[in-house]
């Protein structure tokens, strides 16, 4: 697998050898920040990373085998806003080195086989296109067929407006696919990272058997700006962060990115195919 440059909110400066944290503004050597998985060594701010980098961080070295690598969608509506949608798509494909906003495949995570999917927020905001929905549904189905637990790292603004009602229907498609995984008694671990909004959190991403989130990720159905415009309400402190939802029983665990792989490994060790006597009695 080729690793494209990570999409990161914190900008590299000068010759790219240093990195400025978008939260605390401190400057660090780029190699040091890459080593801390794009978590700021000073303030622990989790910078956004792309799908390729996410998979590099979670999959055991050399274990990732991509699924449906050539699968793309079409511009069903012939959509034009201020530019043609087809132009936006081509530009995003070239920049992110991805066919659309989701990368899927099988991998080993701390030695445990799993289906693994990662959204790419840099690709049109990680939005739900028909191609993303299809890649996701197929990844869930490949996992079912191969008896693999399914792990999905979501970073998505929600629907892709340019695909209109077809985008909306991807919420239904993903939930229909997950029904099959549940019928096969296979676990779905949903990992929410900054940001996970709208149609993505209101469908598959909220349906994890176990839901993890990175610290301080923005997660919610309606974005804060729209809520303020629509209702003039004051937003409470920490509104729509991982910690906010965790305190309300909606997220199981808030996990630092530097511990995420180890945490996943522990979960998969418990949730993987039953082997013990007591488990067999239930199987």
């Amino acid at each position, binding site marked *: 697998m080729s690793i494209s440059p990570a999409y990161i909110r914190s900008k590299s400066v000068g010759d790219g050898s240093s990195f400025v944290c978008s939260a605390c503004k401190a400057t660090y050597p780029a190699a040091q920040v890459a080593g801390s998985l794009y978590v700021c060594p000073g303030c622990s701010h989790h910078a956004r990373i792309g799908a390729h980098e996410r998979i590099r961080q979670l999959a055991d070295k050399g274990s990732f085998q991509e699924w449906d690598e050539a699968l793309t969608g079409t511009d069903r509506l012939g959509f034009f806003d201020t530019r043609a949608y087809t132009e936006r798509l081509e530009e995003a494909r070239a920049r992110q080195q991805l066919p659309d906003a989701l990368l899927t495949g099988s991998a080993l995570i701390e030695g445990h086989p799993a289906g693994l999917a990662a959204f790419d927020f840099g690709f049109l905001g990680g939005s739900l296109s028909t191609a993303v929905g299809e890649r996701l549904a197929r990844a869930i189905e490949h996992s079912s067929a191969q008896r693999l637990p399914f792990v999905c790292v979501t970073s998505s603004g929600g629907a892709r407006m340019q695909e209109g*009602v077809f985008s909306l229907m991807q919420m239904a498609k993903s939930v229909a696919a997950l029904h099959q995984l549940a019928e096969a008694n296979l676990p779905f671990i949903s990992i929410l990272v900054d940001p996970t909004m709208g149609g993505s959190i209101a469908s598959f991403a909220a349906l994890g058997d176990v839901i993890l989130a990175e610290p301080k990720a923005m997660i919610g159905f309606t974005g804060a700006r729209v*809520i303020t415009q*629509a209702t003039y309400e004051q937003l409470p402190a920490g509104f729509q962060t991982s910690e906010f939802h965790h305190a309300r029983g909606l997220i199981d665990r808030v996990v630092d990115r530097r511990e995420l792989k180890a945490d996943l490994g522990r979960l998969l060790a418990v949730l993987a195919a039953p082997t013990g006597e007591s488990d067999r009695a239930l199987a």
Partner: protein
Amino acid sequence: MTPAEPGVRAGEEVAAAAWAHVEVSRHPDRPYALDLIQRCLDDFIELHGDRQGGDDGAMVIGLARLEGQRLAVVANQKGRTLEERGRRNFGMAHPEGYRKAQRLFTLAGRLKLPVVSFIDTPGAYPGVAAEERGQAWAIAQTLEAQLALPTPYLAVVIGEGGSGGALATLLADSVMVLEHAFLSVASPEAAAAILFRDAGQKQHAAAALRLEASNLLEWGIADEIVPEPPGGAHTDWDGTAAILRPRLVTRIKQLTDRGFDPARRRARYRQLDGLFEG
């Protein structure tokens, strides 16, 4: 209506026509769910509450009969008077509303009742309290409940079908859409704000999204477009109900007669869009 040309900005006339469709679907005199339920169904008995602490007025559930067939009913409800608009929250449900719908799907499954839904919502309520109580989780679980429902299920879009809030009661075996109703990924105003950074471009957003009901039939998302009386449903509630009722009877009979299998519903939503390369 002239469709928008693909890949270019719609002309002003096309945009105005798309916007007119949205305005008819939102007409203040349009029959709301309970207006049609009272005229189309027999013996409607409203039930209340999600059994978890709330009773959301924006979502109505109940039991009914239609020519002898027992039914479970779930509907988005808008208000007409100032008081009722507040109580119904303009048809925008909180998590309690979606959990109330889930309760209805559970009840219908246990008692083997076919379900009919009536959809007329701008969308799920975009407020702080809704987020605090898990709006996204409530909608996701309702999508799951619909796809697990073991009995026949018919959805009717009667007005606005806004976003995830509409989808929460749309994932049926058969979907009917009134002639001037629409289903959209976002309201045209919200889409315009996102796409053009200008809510004033709502007419162009409506055209670009191709919101007209007839497209839903072409795309296989709807199975039937229900004509409205001349001038639109808002001019004649009884006339609208007279057209809708026999079509409900026929559709429900088709669904209950054909050796029902909920796996077909899941396959429908899994395979809805089949055009992929690679």
